[in-house]
């Protein structure tokens, strides 16, 4: 029997207004994952809203507050990868979906930050998501594997390859770069 606490979900099931608490608690994680994946604020907001809508429809399936975080993370990663796949099949790109240069103000070396951001954006979709889950969410390899439904060894290899690619493309990043973004 599952005895994990489900306070947030139970509250939201009793009172739809309490869903706001769930949105507030996880919005930074969801919004940042999409923003870091597409580097586009409008898309970040749209896809985040889609994720919350999906959660709202399937709230009764959530088993615990911990499961809620996992479910949201999995939903947002799937949506990002699906959306990226759809974008590739499109012949044109709407203006609002073009990658925004310098989506965040930087206080350190903006040039190097922009280079690294560009290199991360150029990684293949799944590889980019592995990097985001590792360095944005600070997840362990096992957790990334569960989220992306991949074997742990594949995650390990993917991450190693991603870092190798970034390292070979940005060799001068050995110097410390201050990006001026803080975890909230």
């Amino acid at each position: 029997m599952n005895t994990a606490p489900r306070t947030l979900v139970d509250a939201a099931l009793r009172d739809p207004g309490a869903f706001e608490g769930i949105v507030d608690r996880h919005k930074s994680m969801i919004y940042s994952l999409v923003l870091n994946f597409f580097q586009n604020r409008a898309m970040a907001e749209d896809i985040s809203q889609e994720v919350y809508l999906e959660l709202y429809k399937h709230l009764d399936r959530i088993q615990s507050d911990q499961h809620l975080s996992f479910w949201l993370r999995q939903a947002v990663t799937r949506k990002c990868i699906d959306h990226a796949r759809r974008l590739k099949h499109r012949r044109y790109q709407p203006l609002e979906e073009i990658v925004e240069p310098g989506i965040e103000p930087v206080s350190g070396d903006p040039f190097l930050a922009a280079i690294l951001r560009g290199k991360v954006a150029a990684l293949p979709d799944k590889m980019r998501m592995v990097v985001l889950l590792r360095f944005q969410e600070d997840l362990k390899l096992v957790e990334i594997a569960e989220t992306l439904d991949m074997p742990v060894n594949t995650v390990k290899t993917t991450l190693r390859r991603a870092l190798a690619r970034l390292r070979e493309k940005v060799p001068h990043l050995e110097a410390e770069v201050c990006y001026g973004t803080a975890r909230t």
Partner: protein
Amino acid sequence: MEPLERNLRRLLARRPAPPGFTARVMASLDNETSPAKSIGWAMVGRWRWPMVGALAASLAVGVYFQQRRVEQVAAAERAAGQLLISLHIAGTKINKARQAVLRLGGESP
């Protein structure tokens, strides 16, 4: 930790959602679940199983009548074949009878 990894952590750190984000999400949920927008789909959802049942029934009736028609056509073709055979047999018998009659007529004085 390597400089690259440290830099990635800084670059990809979580950022706050824009102001009014939660309110916009809640508004989108209200719009999505409002009866005005979803009434068509709600009706479809309510009548889904009766519609499926009606569709299945009409399909079954259609298949039954089609099958009956096929059987009737086959029976008609069989009957036509038998009729042709009967006509052929009758024609042969009449021909034989005619020849017998002619033979008898030729033998008589």
